[in-house]
């Protein structure tokens, strides 16, 4: 008991010292520049960017390639450092500000002063994080597959064993019991979806490069994932599934002459992927946002008063750690839920009728 108390006191004093140190740094930071703008910082962290912020310095960014198609139809590829800090590349490309309506995006300045948003295929921070995720997932599972090819039925140990456990948890826990004999057909897609979301979520929680991108908290990513599920569900849907959509088993007056149920069913076909999109996006973005807000509280209160800032930093750090731990859980749960719902939607479209 006494030993525990001693330990607790040591931890608390370390936290306090760290908080005070952070406080001094925060004060100098906030006094150096202009007033901190929480909204800008939050949206910068949640959104996309043309460079990748490196740890310990706000100004140095890892330059990433910008690939755009200009208004005249020509393609341009240049480093993001060419347009950093308000610089104009090639006399016409720059990063838009709020006044232009394209805040933080590459814009083309027309000679008459108006702006044009070029077709943008840039390797942004999110695209780079996407590549990192794809490479991590591919290398982990290709090496696991190689292990099985070499060792046959031998059970893998350590990291590969953990990956096998994860695979078995999803495959044996959701995919196989739900899809039964159809499982081998759809399992590759569902497993890929789960692993991709899970790894992307976790990499997003790693605060510094090569993590920290809010990838699964970006609606474009979740939209594409949901579209893949939509595609898988409807392209491989059975005749019975389509009959259930357009001519469901309900009393006749519900579908003729006013097609109430068919309209609802068709609507449902599209709300399913929409729900998938928004659920994953909102959960992951929310998690990132809370952690950033809690961290920003330190800087906001530090600008007010030293002692208020000191207390806030201890509380904020504790809360951020707690929230990050929750986010680790949420990372898994959201990947799990997305996969589970995808499996469910696909299996509903695979039903062969009521005779079974």
């Amino acid at each position, binding site marked *: 008991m006494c030993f525990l108390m001693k330990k607790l006191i040591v931890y608390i004093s370390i936290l306090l010292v760290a908080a005070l140190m952070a406080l001094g740094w925060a004060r100098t930071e906030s006094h150096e520049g202009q007033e901190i703008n929480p909204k800008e910082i939050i949206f910068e962290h949640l959104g*996309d960017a043309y460079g990748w912020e490196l740890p310990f310095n706000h100004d140095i960014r890892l330059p990433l390639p910008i690939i755009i198609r200009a208004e005249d139809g020509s393609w341009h590829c240049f480093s993001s450092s060419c347009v950093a800090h308000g610089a104009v590349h090639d006399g016409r490309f720059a990063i838009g500000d709020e006044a232009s309506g394209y805040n933080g995006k590459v814009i083309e300045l027309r000679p008459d002063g108006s702006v044009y948003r070029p077709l943008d*295929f840039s390797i942004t921070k999110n695209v780079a994080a*996407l590549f990192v995720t794809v490479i991590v997932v*591919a290398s982990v599972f290709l090496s696991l597959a190689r292990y099985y090819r070499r060792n046959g039925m031998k059970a893998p140990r350590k990291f590969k064993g953990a990956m096998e456990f994860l*695979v078995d948890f999803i495959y044996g826990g959701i995919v196989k019991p739900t899809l039964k004999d159809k499982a081998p057909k759809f399992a590759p897609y569902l*497993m890929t979806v789960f692993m991709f979301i899970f790894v992307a979520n976790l990499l997003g929680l790693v605060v510094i490069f090569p993590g920290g991108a809010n990838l699964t908290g970006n*609606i474009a990513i979740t939209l594409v994932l949901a579209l893949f599920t939509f595609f898988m569900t409807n392209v491989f849907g059975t005749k019975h599934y389509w009959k259930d959509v357009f001519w469901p088993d309900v009393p006749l007056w519900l579908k003729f002459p006013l097609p109430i149920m068919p309209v609802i069913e068709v609507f449902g076909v599209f709300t399913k992927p929409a729900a998938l999109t928004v659920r994953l996006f909102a959960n992951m973005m929310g998690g990132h946002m809370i952690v950033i807000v809690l961290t920003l509280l330190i800087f906001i209160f530090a600008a007010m008063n030293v002692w208020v800032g000191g207390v806030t930093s201890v509380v904020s750090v504790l809360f951020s750690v707690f929230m990050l731990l929750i986010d680790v859980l949420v990372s898994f749960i959201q990947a799990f839920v997305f996969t589970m719902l995808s499996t469910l939607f696909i299996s509903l479209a695979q039903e062969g009728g009521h005779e079974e």
Partner: protein
Amino acid sequence: MELFTPEFGLIFWMFVSFAILFFILARFAWPWILKSIDERARMIDEGVEKTRQAEESLANAKLTAERYEKEAVARQAEILREADRMKTQIIEEARGQASVEAKKVLEAAQLSIEQMRKEAQARMRDEVSALAIDIATKVVRQQMADDESQSKLVNSLLDEISNN
């Protein structure tokens, strides 16, 4: 609001990257991994079932072995008893046979002894009769040396005959 408007470039890259990831993993990773996991699970299930069956048959085998053992012990006892009985019987038989044989031998011996005795008796009698005749001859010859005695004998013999 920019958070809720999907960026076309990101959609494009996401589509391309995810499609590539999916095709690579679907072609080279998942079939192997899932097949191995399925097969291992099947093997473990079968193994458990086999173990259960093996345990069952082992228990059965133990029971059978015990039964055989008991039977064997019983048979052994029976065989031993039988052997004992046979031994006694053989000894008895042998003893009986031996006594019969001995009797036979004894009888034969007695017979031969008897025969020999008879032979000896006969020979002795022959010899004695020969000797008696000899002696009688000698006595007769001595007594019948004179005529008077000869006639006396003839008379006495004749008397005997006439008296009869």
